[in-house]
């Protein structure tokens, strides 16, 4: 496939300003373009991509053999008007120094620090020298994603708590600090928040994540395809369908495998069900965080009903491990086509009735309107995706703008808001539920006949693939490279939370401390998905 759209012109633009660009064929990445540039041009690439209007999507590295010895290859993915481009460069393992893209794109900040912690690449002009993913489980001079680092590592008898991480300090009379976590008060994931406040008002929030780092990228190495699908399904348990789909898509593209149509329709059905379940649950949780118990219990009830139906139809309440390389684990029994359609209609009606009640309550509006505003310019600078981005004017949805089957054959509405407050993010959820319920109807009525799984064939060693899926939190990017014997050499999943956690730090500014839970819930970043 030849690249099209404005991004197709971008490599020529780079060449015009004297950057040596090599276009490469990579069938597993297509339709994403692949270009290779010299490490010395990396900084200019970032500057040009920004002025071209590209969104910075993700960056990942891997150690590979090259002519001059072991090198570390860095990939950065950009997006523009629904077209994707991967730019690649390499630095010698012995002196891995590269210019940072953070100076052009704030979104690159934590991902580059992650690469530094995991692979030892020094981003020379990175504005923040502090570690990110590394706490105390390995030393400053060890890099878990290098080939000579064993997956078992050499841990101490007991890993100490993280210390000597320099949080930024606000100063002035009456400024005080509130440390929260890693163990939180509720039944939620662990992470640390450092608030600087004056009275009730938040001056600054700084996040310290990485507590659930489980070495996912490292322990993916050497797995077979089924093993990788299972691991991907556990990158973030609430997005198990979407992550498994993205990883399987990457593996299937690397293998050049075509899927039976019924398999992708069933995948989409599960993915939309997952979106609905999470949005329904989150609306309840948002209402809970403004102490509106009625709303919480009503939506918690609807979520439970929905998940039980998923279990009946697919055998698992979250549909975990239902997506497998080559298709889906089991076909859908025809009797569920009618019941699922009825359930979807019923859910729509029930939510409609509840919202008629909730919309009428000034005390709810008072808590969510104008609270936790993420300005559109910040959302753009951080490259926020999903409902967080779309609530702040970032009109992008992989399903519509870079459609993959079966979404290329379906029409649906992608809601967008501009005010960027808790209210807008909650409205986004509601409108996305409506759109998903419509999609579920369409998927059930148009479900093609035929097999649900294609036979797996090992791709050649070195084959790579890129999966891009719109999960319920937004765009998921999944990169896979195969080694010998159909084993995985590299797996990198980019959860959308990488783009929305930094947004939380900005949108909480000037809000009151007691509104933090509702602001946080309206974003609902995944800890596990970003900690890896």
């Amino acid at each position, binding site marked *: 496939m030849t690249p099209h759209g404005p991004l197709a012109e971008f490599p020529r633009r780079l060449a015009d300003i004297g950057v040596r660009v090599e276009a490469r064929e990579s069938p597993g990445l297509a339709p994403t373009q692949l270009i290779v540039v010299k490490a010395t041009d990396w900084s200019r690439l970032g500057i040009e991509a920004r002025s071209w209007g590209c969104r910075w999507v993700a960056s990942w590295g891997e150690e590979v053999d090259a002519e001059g010895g072991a090198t570390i290859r860095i990939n950065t993915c950009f997006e523009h008007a629904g077209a994707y481009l991967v730019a690649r460069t390499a630095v010698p393992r012995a002196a891995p120094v590269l210019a940072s893209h953070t100076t052009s794109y704030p979104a690159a900040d934590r991902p580059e620090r992650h690469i530094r912690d995991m692979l030892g690449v020094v981003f020379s002009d990175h504005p923040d020298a502090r570690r990110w993913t590394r706490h105390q489980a390995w030393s400053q001079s060890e890099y878990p994603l290098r080939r000579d680092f064993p997956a078992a590592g050499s841990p101490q008898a007991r890993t100490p708590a993280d210390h000597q991480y320099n949080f930024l300090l606000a100063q002035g009379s009456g400024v005080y600090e509130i440390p929260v976590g890693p163990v939180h008060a509720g039944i939620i994931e662990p992470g640390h928040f450092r608030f600087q406040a004056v009275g009730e008002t938040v001056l600054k929030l700084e996040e310290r994540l990485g507590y659930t780092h489980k070495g996912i990228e490292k322990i993916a190495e050497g797995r077979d395809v089924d093993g990788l699908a299972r691991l991907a399904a556990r990158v973030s348990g609430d997005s198990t369908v979407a992550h498994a789909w993205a990883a399987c898509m990457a593996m299937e593209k690397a293998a050049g495998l075509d899927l039976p149509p019924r398999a992708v329709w069933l995948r989409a059905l599960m993915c939309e069900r997952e979106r609905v379940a999470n949005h329904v*649950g989150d609306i309840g949780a948002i209402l809970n965080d403004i102490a509106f118990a009625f709303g919480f219990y009503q939506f918690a009830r609807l979520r439970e009903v929905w998940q039980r139906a998923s279990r009946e139809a697919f055998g698992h309440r979250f549909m975990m491990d239902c997506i497998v390389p080559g298709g889906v684990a089991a076909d859908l029994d025809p009797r569920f086509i009618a019941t699922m359609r009825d359930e979807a209609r019923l859910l729509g009606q029930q939510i409609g009735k509840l919202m008629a009640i909730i919309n009428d309550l000034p005390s709810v509006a008072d808590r969510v309107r104008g609270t936790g505003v993420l300005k559109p310019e910040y959302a753009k600078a951080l490259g926020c995706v999903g409902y967080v981005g779309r609530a702040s004017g970032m009109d992008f949805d992989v399903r519509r703008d870079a459609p993959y089957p079966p979404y290329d054959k379906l029409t649906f509405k992608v809601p967008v808001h501009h005010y960027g407050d808790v209210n807008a993010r909650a409205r986004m959820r509601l409108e996305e539920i409506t759109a998903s319920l419509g999609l579920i109807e369409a998927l059930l009525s148009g479900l093609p006949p035929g097999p649900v799984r294609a036979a797996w064939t090992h791709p050649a060693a070195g084959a790579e693939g890129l999966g891009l899926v719109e999960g319920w939190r937004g765009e998921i990017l999944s990169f896979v490279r195969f080694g010998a014997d159909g084993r995985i050499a590299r797996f990198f999943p980019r959860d959308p939370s990488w783009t929305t956690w930094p947004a939380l730090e900005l949108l909480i500014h000037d809000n009151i401390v007691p509104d933090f839970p509702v602001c946080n819930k309206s974003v609902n970043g995944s800890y596990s998905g970003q900690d890896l």
Partner: protein
Amino acid sequence: MLRILGKIQRLGIVTETRPELGEPALTEIGEQLKAHIGERFGGSLAIREVDAGSCNGCELEVQALNNPFYSIERFGVHFVASPRHADMLLVSGPVSRHMETALLRTYDAMPEPRLVIAVGECGACGGEFGISYASCGAVSNVIPVDGVIHGCPPTPLDLLRGILEAIAKRP
């Protein structure tokens, strides 16, 4: 307000009394749980849940115990924010090395006697993540464990049953 009350009245109580999906009655397990809690914990069992590195799947199911179908509080179980108020620790996930000390500190902060349950395949044996440079694997590799609840993730009913077993077998 009238509409809220109207909705509540029309919907009635969804809390379950019937067997679901071929599993033993929730109320049966719940009533046993309540009896044990009455006998051994003065009618109230306080649980502190700690995610020690989970994928968040287990948390969703623990949260579900509070939804109106399970409504675990009616059996005398409530989730507390501080380990100092807790009789029981529910720990999910393989214990990430970055959470090892936080988990130990949480455990140390609990008053004795204390019960610990490892939740999910990860908590029971490390699950898909196992032991690595980043993960200590099973919860029992870090703190003493009194019971495990298998499943990936365990369903809310599995969780209820596991909590019951752990307190019933306690001498």
